[in-house]
């Protein structure tokens, strides 16, 4: 049985001021699935991702990553299996050089130096950023930062990739490269984004969040053809379905 699944059941979370961000969210991702998580601002996408990585502790419900239930004592194990790419790559890159940053995760996993070096090399090659290895992270362009941020996660060999707004701040070419990269990955992927065209290209399935609940879950094309659903959830069909591209 594959350990690369993600099962979320009845997840609830409320912020200290009482705002209910998640209100009984349930879904399951199978091995190798690429799923888009869409919704209007404040729908609960980012909170959802934080809860998956145990960065905020849900007030109810369960997160099951490959058979391990998220709890205080399993959060380390969960984070080993789940690669989390943050919305702002600036937040993700904190080490002196690209190499050090990509090596940060594997070193924390206790790998040997040759193993870490080879993982860093492979991850950077995987995102087409091998030439940036010795560069300081603060001197990279937006697209380069995004590629390196993804490599920092790939180097930990995660079973599941979770990405928050991966295409934000990218130029068209950078975005195109990202889509190609996402298509190339064989990991189970969950991509939270407002870029519905990206979802159409890179995700076969889409989950729509609305007011902290799953409003719809199904094939991306079917979801984006449902005008009433999109209207209700403050969304619009992707540009490619509006005949604008």
């Amino acid at each position, binding site marked *: 049985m594959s350990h690369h699944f993600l099962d979320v059941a009845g997840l609830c979370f409320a912020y200290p001021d009482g705002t209910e961000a998640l209100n009984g969210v349930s879904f399951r991702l199978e091995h190798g699935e690429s799923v888009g998580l869409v919704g209007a601002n404040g729908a609960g996408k980012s909170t959802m991702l*934080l809860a998956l*990585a145990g*960065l905020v502790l849900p007030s109810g419900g369960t997160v099951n990553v490959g058979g391990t239930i998220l709890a205080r004592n399993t959060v*380390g194990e969960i*984070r*080993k299996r*789940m690669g*989390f790419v*943050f919305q*702002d790559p600036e*937040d*993700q890159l*904190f*080490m*002196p*050089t690209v*190499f*050090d940053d990509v*090596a*940060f*995760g594997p*070193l*924390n*996993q206790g790998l040997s*130096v040759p193993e*870490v*070096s080879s993982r860093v090399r492979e991850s950077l090659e995987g995102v087409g950023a091998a030439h940036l290895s*010795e*560069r*300081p*992270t*603060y001197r990279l362009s937006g697209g380069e930062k995004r590629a390196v941020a993804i490599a*920092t*996660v790939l180097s*930990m060999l995660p079973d599941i990739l979770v990405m928050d707004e991966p295409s934000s701040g990218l130029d068209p070419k950078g975005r195109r490269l990202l889509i190609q990269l996402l298509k190339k990955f064989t990991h189970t992927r969950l991509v939270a984004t407002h870029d519905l065209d990206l979802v159409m290209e890179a995700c076969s399935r889409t989950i729509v969040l609305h007011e902290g609940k799953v409003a719809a879950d199904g094939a991306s094309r079917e979801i984006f053809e449902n005008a009433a659903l999109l209207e209700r959830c403050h969304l619009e069909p992707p540009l490619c379905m509006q005949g604008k591209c």
Partner: protein
Amino acid sequence: MGRVEPSLFSSTSDPGIDQANRPDPRAFWVVTFAFVLTVTSFGKYEISRLTPLFFYPVTIGTLYGVSARALLRKAFFALPFVLLVGLFNPLLDRQVLLEIGGYSLSGGWVSFFSITMRSMLAVTSAILLAMTTPFDRLCLGLEKMRVPRVLVTQLQFLHRYMFLLRGEALRMVRAHDLRAQGNKPRIALSTAGSMIGLLLLRALDRATRVHRAMLVRGFDGEVRVLHPLRFSWSRDGGFALGWILYFVLVRLVNLPEWLFGWVVGR
């Protein structure tokens, strides 16, 4: 930004600086510590005996490409604090110590100059340490010298936080200036108050996000790096020993007096 600036203002090493040809940070720490110890060991009326100590910042600055201007500009920020320390000496100590060309100089003024000189020497040596060695290597050096890891990690976080704070401040000031009036917009006191509060909140938010990014990649309180330090006894040991011997010499022998006597004697 200048060639050596990133080692002071960012948590990154400048690729333009070849660290392989620089002394090991442990040697640099030891030399800087010995220098500060030597500087502070002189009496409060010593001025001329301090002058040979200027050889250290001048040599290090020249060897490692730190311009005097950049060094002095940074040292200038410490000057108000230095002046404040010795400010009352001329008022409290009025006993005449020196007579130069009919002018008398009180002990207070001599000690004031001595304090200023010693403080600036100590400050410039610390700045040189930061400008010639990237912060992460300095921290690694401390860790190798068995400074408690928790303290080193705190230093790394503090440094990173300063960087975040600076970034957020720059963004806020830019946003303010774009909507303010005039060519050189000034931040009103009332606006500055709320901006500082907001700045702290924003920087804390950002720091939380960075911390989260570290947590999801297995951070457990220790920052591990792959580039181990290599201490070469011939290069780094020689560097440290050479400078320490020089500081001992300056401390034990009145070099300016000896040099003066030697020149006059000839």
